[in-house]
């Protein structure tokens, strides 16, 4: 308080509005504000966002329900249960090319730390990460993503499982890239 009253007349007069000088000067500087959520800026291509369960070109799921992602997960965010593909008439149907598919697949985004170890663990490249990052909600249940939410959308040439393997193709043909989208 000892300095008070030491300034001159003008400085004392402008002191109450002196702070606006900063505001005024800033108005002429470059703006860094992002207009999120109206404008969404793309992330870096390898940004760790929401997961996706990929499909083979004919729509069959790549996931074999091996649970290696769940095993690798340091946050225990993933739950998988495998089951048998049953393409006998009247059976529960075929979801993936081999013997086994992921019947239950859940990722808990309250737990996920987006480290990507699950992606590294996946032996069939079924699980990858998208760049989608808008994962906020006001309740727990909606942040546990189920298989339907995680599955990649059907692209052209894909049909939704359950359905049979492409004619004349075996499991290994899928992994060797011999199966294309139009069922050949």
């Amino acid at each position: 308080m000892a300095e008070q009253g030491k300034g001159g007349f003008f400085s004392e007069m402008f002191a109450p509005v002196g702070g606006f000088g900063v505001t005024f000067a800033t108005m002429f500087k470059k703006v860094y504000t992002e207009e999120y959520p109206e404008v969404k800026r793309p992330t870096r291509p390898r940004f760790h966002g929401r997961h996706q369960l990929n499909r083979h070109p004919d729509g069959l799921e790549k996931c074999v329900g091996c649970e290696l992602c769940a095993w690798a997960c340091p946050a225990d965010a993933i739950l998988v249960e495998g089951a048998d593909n049953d393409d006998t008439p009247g059976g529960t149907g075929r979801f993936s090319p081999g013997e086994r598919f992921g019947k239950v697949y859940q990722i808990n985004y309250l737990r996920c730390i987006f480290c990507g170890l699950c992606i590294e663990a996946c032996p069939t490249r079924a699980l990858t990460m998208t760049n989608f990052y808008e994962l906020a909600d006001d309740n727990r249940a909606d942040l546990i993503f189920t298989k339907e939410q995680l599955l990649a959308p059907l692209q052209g040439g894909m049909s939704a499982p359950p359905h049979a393997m492409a004619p004349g193709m075996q499991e290994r043909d899928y992994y060797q890239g011999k199966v294309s989208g139009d069922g050949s």
Partner: protein
Amino acid sequence: MTVTPEKSTAEKSPQQPQSPASGADAVPKPGGAEAPAAKPPVDMVELTIDGIPVSVPKGTLIIRAAEQIGIEIPRFCDHPGLDPMGACRQCLVEVAMPGPPGPDGKPGAARQMQGPPGRMKPQASCTMTVAPGMEVKTQFTSPGAEKAQHGVMELLLINHPLDCPVCDKGGECPLQNQAMTSGRPVSRFEDIKRTYPKPINISSQVLLDRERCVLCARCTRFSDQIAGDPFIALVERGALQQVGIYEDQPFESYFSGNTVQICPVGALTGAAYRFRSRPFDLVSTPGACEHCASGCAIRTDHRRGTVLRRMAINDPAVNEEWNCDKGRWAFASPTVGDRIELPLVRDAAGELQVASWPEALAAAAAGLRGTKSAVLTGGRISVEDAYAYSKFARTVLHTNAIDFRTRQHSSEEAQFLASTVVATGPNGGATTYADLEAATNVLLVGFEAEEESPIVFLRLRKAFRRNKTVVTSIAPYASRGLTKLGGTLIPAAPGTETDVLAADAAADALSGARNVVLVGERLASVAGGFAAALDLAERTGAKLAWVPRRAGERGALEAGALYGLLPGGRPVRNVEARAQVAAAWGVADLPTDVGLDMSGIIAGAAGGGVTSLLVGGVDAADLGAQAAKALEKAFVVSLDYRPSSVTAYADVVLPVAPHAEKAGTFVNWEGRTRPFQAALSTTALSDYRVLDLLADELGVFLGVRSLAEIQREMSALGAWAGGRYHRPTTTASLVPQPAPGQFVLASWHLLLDKGSLQDGEPFLAGTAHPARARMSSVSAAAVGAADGDVVTITGPAGSVRVPLEVTDMVDHVVWLPANSAGCRVSDLGVPVGQLVTVIPGGAS
């Protein structure tokens, strides 16, 4: 896992015997007379492994000697329970043997075992036995051994599909683990792998994936050596070698699940567990099997509230490393969808309605209060539950009318159990599995080991293979189990066992140095059978053991769930015994009435002498012909977890916990305690807890609220050291005389049948043996039926139609499986040993 209770006996003085049910063997050791015979001195062999000196008995395999000093040599085909084979070559080590003795007589310097001169020849440590002065170098000290192991692993993996992500073994696979510890980092193989169609069914329950097989022959050796069902074998040669099945004979083994457990890769998998889980998901709980009185140590693996599989635990004193398929796979019955989770009370309209616990307990108490009550417990309850039933009957219902024998029984059997069986145990010199293995002669009476106590069968088979034990069976025909034991049959029609036991042939069968007689619970259907067996055991100096079929029977006997016995084998009519129990229970006196056995209870209820029944886990079909009438007439409180033929009549149904959801103890046929823990944590209450609540409602403090409370009380009470009931004396046997067209009924339960605990497991049911009636060719000719024809067997209450299998067996007898698909003997309305008529024809 062994729970042989040496510790607790050591803590107590010998004058203070404990009940077997409380964690100790009942009878004090009689003055050291039972001291084990001095073992002959064992030749020890000195050798070094990785430079570490080790001394092991002569004949030990190198791989076992290495285990003793903590050196693990990788292996696939080696298994301590199976004969050495040397099939996989993964366990190669470098061996040097001492050279020829020099002039001083001492062995020369160790010389490496070589193939071509100068080249080390690796040796399979799982087939080579130790020798004095041998120097073994494993992969830890010998670069040559390590390289050899890497080479073998690379060869094993050439045709292995590496489909670990979809393989059930993934995560607990010796091949996976050892490929990491003893394999090359990368494969040099660049060709196309040999493939086979994915999995083929060996049986409805066991699946074979031939691509994954490393040809270790563990499964074929197990089937051949341990189970004696050689239905699988290695076929073809070279790269095409594979495990094959006989086309015309299905793999109907009761022990096939063990091949799944010991397969070191994922070549054999169980259909029920297929793709269900991963080992790291599973939470394991040690326990005991609830299916039979063998008392196998098992592990229950569950995930998120569902039991997914059960495995055998290695308990050398009991089941070694094996269990039967029923124990492994029959655990789905609580989850078939009809579980009783809430109490049910019958309303005025006669319908069972869901009720709250207080409402149901009040209804049960109102129905039981002031009535003449009786208690029937099933054969599958734990000791603690049986103790609670016993205490409830005596202190709340004031009656001795309690019986656990919900099957064919006799007062002679009760006398036999009270005089000879109760309060004995392995530490008291009772017959054990080890005795069976060491026996020279074993006689089976009223007991079909493979069907009724499969682990007893496996131990007898081991005794037969290793020690040339002579097994003799008194039965109507030589079953497949007896054939696999290399046993001889003394043919006996039902009812004639008494005479056969008294004859010379039975004594001749026990002519060895160490004889054992195993009597089954079915001997109760034979008048004088137990007395004759006791006579025979005394005459020949044989040990005698009683092998019940169901897991809870022996424990129920020890806990006093039998009309003439109080806990610890105390006779009801002994004043001092009653006083001891009354003091422990804090009551002034205990009922002194004679009590009623099961048939007495049912007859009483049907006739009006018994007006209320407390029934725990019983099937009405086991209660005899009058069951329906008795259950209809009496006020029935049923404790069960699924609707049954008893809950259909019950006035109040109180839900209890199934095996996986409760803790407790079984007592196996030896008298050995087999504790088990609750695998699943649920709100379901075990029987003792429900009985405690019911007693509270009736205004009596029962004091059985927790396991600890019951076990404390039981061990404080201990076993009875005073006088026992007299043993049964021989009575004249009653042999029915069949008229033409009539046959004596013989029957026993097959291991896999329509038992309600096996519900919900279609893959297991697919391996059950089909129902067949058996008659001798003479009998079949008498009714005019040929092998394979359908015959109709008729009793007073009904008939069954099954295909006939003409068997080499006694004449005038027809054998039926007791409760198989399409053949339920209780439908006939006659017990075993009575007459039925057989006519050919009838649609099966």
